């Protein structure tokens, strides 16, 4: 029982980070139909920026988080303008390959700039873990969970309640009609990609102090993020949230009770099952962003 409760807490905390990773990718895929292989690298970028700001410039962690997100938005906008905008008429495979190439460039540029040795961001909330009976969790983890929830809510409001959100949804449903109605599709795309990248960078900056900062930290994260997006049914924000938590719990409980050897395989098996049995994902299409 003790173990089950701790696994439940671990799974929730992990699911929160996964949801956070999933929303940025979902946004980009849902609206632009771009399978974004640079997502994991933006995550790495955010973490390194947070390291530079917190550990080298001695800035406040919250401020660094905001700055890293802004820098991530900037990098994302640059990628969109330089690589994606010229490729708007290209097929999905070509775009995917350009993104894989960009991911290779970003990862190795990161390694060139910072060296291969991992960096550590000091814990912004030092002190003892919170203990409740058999369960123990770091305050930092709860902070991550809270920020993830806030970002999810914020993005839902952005899409649902603002003019920009209407433009995004219109672009998603029918780009041509949206263009006729005066939506500037190009800028909607740039903004979407920049925001998605900003979310990835925010996730990296947020999780930097929880884990460790290294040039290859984005590899597994990129794959996991895809899993989450697929699980949720491509392009659905609530779906990505559910997908994130589903993956978190599956990995945690399967790892804890079945086998840690196959812990990371369960996620991929889950995707194969979902795609084979329910290709539309856990949340059906009509509830997607549109």
């Amino acid at each position: 029982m003790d173990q089950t409760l701790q696994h439940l807490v671990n799974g929730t905390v992990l699911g929160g980070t996964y949801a956070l990773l999933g929303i940025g990718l979902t946004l980009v895929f849902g609206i632009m139909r771009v399978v974004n292989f640079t997502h994991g690298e933006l995550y790495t970028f955010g973490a390194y920026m947070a390291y530079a700001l917190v550990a080298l410039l001695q800035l406040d962690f919250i401020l660094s988080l905001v700055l890293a997100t802004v820098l991530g938005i900037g990098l994302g906008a640059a990628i969109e303008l330089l690589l994606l905008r010229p490729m708007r008429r290209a097929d999905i495979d070509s775009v995917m390959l350009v993104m894989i190439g960009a991911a290779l460039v970003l990862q190795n540029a990161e390694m060139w700039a910072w060296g291969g040795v991992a960096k550590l961001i000091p814990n912004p909330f030092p002190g003892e873990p919170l203990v409740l009976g058999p369960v123990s969790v770091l305050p930092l983890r709860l902070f991550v969970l809270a920020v993830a929830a806030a970002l999810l809510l914020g993005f839902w409001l952005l899409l649902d309640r603002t003019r920009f959100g209407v433009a995004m949804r219109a672009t998603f449903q029918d780009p041509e009609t949206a263009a006729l109605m005066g939506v500037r599709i190009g800028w909607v795309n740039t903004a979407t990609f920049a925001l998605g990248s900003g979310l990835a960078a925010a996730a990296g900056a947020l999780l930097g102090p929880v884990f460790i900062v290294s040039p290859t930290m984005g590899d597994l994260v990129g794959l996991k993020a895809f899993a989450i997006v697929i699980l949720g049914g491509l392009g659905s924000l609530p779906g990505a949230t559910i997908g994130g938590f589903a993956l978190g719990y599956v990995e945690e409980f399967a790892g804890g009770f079945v086998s840690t050897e196959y812990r990371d395989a369960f996620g991929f098996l889950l995707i194969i099952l979902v795609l084979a049995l329910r290709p539309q994902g856990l949340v059906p299409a009509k509830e997607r962003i549109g």
Partner: protein
Amino acid sequence: MTSRRTLLLAGLAAPALARPGFAADPIKIGMTQPLTGAVAASGNYVANGAKIATEVLNRAGGVLGRPIELILEDNKSNPREAVASVEKLVLRDKVPVLIGAWSSTFTLAIMPKLVEYKVPMVVETSSASRITTSGNPWVFRIAPTSEMEAVAFAELLGKFDPPVRKIDFLSVNNDFGRGAAEKFTEALRAKGAAIGRTETMTPEATDLAAQITALKQSDGDTVFVTTGVEQLTLALRQAVEQRLGKRIVSTGGSFPDQLLANPLPAGNSSFHILFYAPWFPERAPHPQLAETYTAEWNKKGWEFAGLTEGFRGFDAMLTVVEAIRIAGEPEAEAIREALWQVKIPGVNGDISFVKEGPAGRESGQNRPNVSVVRLSEGKASLL
């Protein structure tokens, strides 16, 4: 041996201007390390150690009156590229001897090529036992196998208080982690310790909560963690986070250097099996040599913690150059013969090879030294 050491120190003392003029072509030594990809950090440390050794030896006059040239190739943390890098070194650069290749997987991938091209290789890091037991006469390993490490550690068991009664493992899912779990189980069971759970993690995993929660269920008192530096740091931090409450011992020479500047909360300490403890060069088997190595490294401004791995490249280079000196010529077969006669001091301790593997096709294996360092609140001390 003494003359060799004096030579090294002379090289260190000689001012740059007095560098002996080399008339002849350099003698090439090939090295393959993971300089990019997943395990690049360690690969670069080892490569740096070899670079220092090359400089020090060249200042002392090189070997056979010729300068030494280190040709370094990246194996990109992947076995196919490890093979490609060796083909480049042997076939294009025509190096007569190799150093490599960090991970056991890369080393094993290269080994058939050593037979094919008849070039000896000094293995500086890989720990899988079958590297030296599979009958490849071109392999000479200065790094300890997991078994040697486990046996050496078992001798120090009495120094732990409270004593080690029951052990668990948290191992990375590769030959390094699995090998260590197997050999430490054997060695410590022989000393009367009970064995609890073994949990594994993929090398890329960052969240180890499930594994640590599972380990909490065991009533063992000591967890052996075997993985690379990054994951070791993660494991230590997440163990504190979940209040694992067990003694943690890391194996294989990995040291969580980030915890020097950002220590774990007070009251948490960990133990690390190392092959060189750079805080105490004076307590190394050959203090002068260790101090030379440490001083040269620090002069470059490289990360202090890299010293715990960099010595592998340094010692490997000393070994190879000594073999070339004994061979009297930079020829592969002569160097292979000469490697059996190498007897030199290294940073880790004396280096010489004993035979292992099937008769007639033996590989060389060195008997390295092991020290256990205790890390507490950012301070290291020898056990």
